[in-house]
C-alpha cells in the first residue's frame, strides 16, 4: 500500500485528461478544454505538463524532466522527484534512455524516436491571446480559420525591426489548419516540431487546455515569402563541448563584460563531453 494513487491523480481525473488527449490527437493543434486540478505546486510551475505526464505514465516508463534544456534546475528536479515518489517510475537524464520526457521551453537536441513521448509545459496556450483578449473571439477565429491578425503582428515586427522579432513561442500552423503556440521554446527549436517521430503533448494547467501533435505531422512556422522563417541562435560554439549547432545559453562571468556561451541542453553537452574525453 502506497500513500498515493499511481501517479498522484485519482482515476476519474486521469480518465478526463485521457479523453482530452485522444481528442487533441484527433484534431492536431486544437486546444481541448479540460478540468485542470490543483496540484501540489503553484500554477506556472508546470501543473499542466505534470497532469498530462501523470495521465500517460505507466509503471514501466523511464522519465526525464528538463527545464530550459537542463536536468538539474529546481523545476526539473522537483517534478522528477514528484514522480519518483508518487509513481515509483525510473528516471534518467539521458534523452536516449527516456520513454517520457517532460519539458519546459526546449526540445532536446538529440533527435527523438518513435517510442518516446514529449510533454510540454505551457503557460499561455492561445497564440492569439495577446492580440485578442476575449476567449469567445479567439475561439471563433480558430473556428473560421481567421488568422489574419497573426500575420499583421508578424508584419508589424518587420515594419518596426526590419525582421520578425519574435524569438520564442513562435506561432506555427499545424497540418494546414490550426495555428498553435508551441509553448515558449526558442524559434531555433521550431523545425523539430514538424515530422517528429515522437508523440508531442501540450498541457496548460492554469489555462486548462490540452493540445497535441501526432507523430509525422506537418508543422509550419508562419512567415512571409520575402521574410522567410529563420531558426536563429547565438553565433558561437559551446565553450564546454564545442558544439556549433546546439542552442546556447549566454552566461555572464564577471562584471567586465566577460561572457560564455554553453549548450542549453545539459545532457547533449555532457554526452559530447564524455565522448570527447573518452
Amino acid at each position, binding site marked *: 500500500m502506497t500513500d498515493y494513487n499511481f501517479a498522484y491523480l485519482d482515476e476519474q481525473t486521469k480518465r478526463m485528461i485521457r479523453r482530452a488527449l*485522444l481528442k487533441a490527437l484527433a484534431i492536431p493543434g486544437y486546444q481541448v478544454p479540460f478540468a485542470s486540478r490543483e496540484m501540489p505546486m503553484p500554477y506556472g510551475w508546470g501543473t499542466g505538463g505534470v497532469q498530462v505526464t501523470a495521465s500517460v505514465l505507466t509503471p514501466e516508463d523511464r522519465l526525464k524532466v528538463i527545464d530550459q534544456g537542463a536536468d538539474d534546475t529546481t523545476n526539473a528536479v522537483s517534478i522528477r522527484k514528484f514522480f519518483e515518489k508518487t509513481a515509483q517510475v525510473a528516471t534518467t537524464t539521458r534523452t536516449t534512455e527516456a520513454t517520457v520526457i517532460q519539458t519546459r521551453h526546449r526540445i532536446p537536441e538529440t533527435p527523438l524516436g518513435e517510442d518516446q513521448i514529449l510533454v510540454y509545459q505551457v503557460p499561455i496556450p492561445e497564440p492569439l491571446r495577446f492580440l485578442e483578449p476575449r476567449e469567445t473571439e479567439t*475561439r471563433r477565429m480558430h473556428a473560421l480559420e481567421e488568422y489574419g491578425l497573426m500575420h499583421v503582428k508578424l508584419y508589424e515586427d518587420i515594419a518596426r525591426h526590419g525582421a520578425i522579432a519574435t524569438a520564442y513561442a513562435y506561432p506555427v500552423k499545424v497540418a494546414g489548419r490550426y495555428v498553435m503556440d508551441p509553448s515558449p521554446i526558442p524559434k531555433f527549436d521550431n523545425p523539430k516540431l514538424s515530422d517528429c517521430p515522437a508523440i508531442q503533448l501540450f498541457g496548460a494547467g492554469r489555462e486548462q487546455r490540452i493540445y497535441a501533435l501526432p507523430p509525422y505531422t506537418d508543422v509550419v512556422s508562419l512567415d512571409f515569402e520575402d521574410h522567410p522563417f529563420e531558426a536563429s541562435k547565438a553565433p558561437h560554439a559551446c565553450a564546454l563541448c564545442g558544439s556549433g549547432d546546439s542552442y546556447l545559453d549566454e552566461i555572464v562571468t564577471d562584471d567586465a563584460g566577460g561572457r560564455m556561451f554553453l549548450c542549453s541542453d545539459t545532457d547533449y553537452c555532457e554526452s559530447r563531453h564524455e565522448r570527447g574525453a573518452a
Partner: protein
Amino acid sequence: MRDALDGGFTDAAPDAARAFRAILTAMARPGQIARVTGATGPVPMSLAAAAVLLTLCDPTTPLHLAGRYDTDAIRAWVAFHIGAPLVGADSADFVLGDWADLLPLDRFRQGSPDYPDRSATLIVEMRELTAEGATLTGPGIRDSACLSLPDRAAFRDNATRFPLGVDFLFTAGDRVAALPRTTQVF
C-alpha cells in the same frame, strides 16, 4: 450468464495506465495495432473493448450500446464497473457496436465549429484486425499505413467534415487500432 461483478481491472491504476498507453499510441499512429488486456466484459464484447470502456468511460460520459451489444448482461456490467449513463445515438460521447449497426454516422455528435472536440468516439467491434486493406495517410502516419477497415466511403465522408467529425477505435480480441478524423482513406 457471467456475473456482472466480474471482469474489471485487477489493479485499476496501473492496468488503466497500460491500456491507455496502447490506446494513445493507436490514436497517435493511425493503422498501428496495439494490444490491450486486463478486462473481460460479457459476450459478445471483446477483451479490447472492455479495456477501452473501463479506461475511458465513467459516470460523466454518456454511452450508446448499438445492436447486439444492448443486452441486459452488458447493461449490468456497465452499470457496476463504469456507471456511464446509457443514452441514444445522438447524445453519446462513446458508442459500442458492430459496424453495420453504426451507420449512418451523422447520427452521432460531430462537435461544433467552436468545440470540435465535443464529438463522439465510436468503438467498432471487428472480427479481426490486420495491417492490410485500406491505405491510410495523414497526421501520425510516416508515409502510409494499411488497416482492415470495414468500409471506405463512410470514413472518407467523415474526414471531409474536418475539423468536425467522429473518431474511431477498432477492437478485435485483445487488439485495438484507431482512425481519427484527420486520416485520409484510399
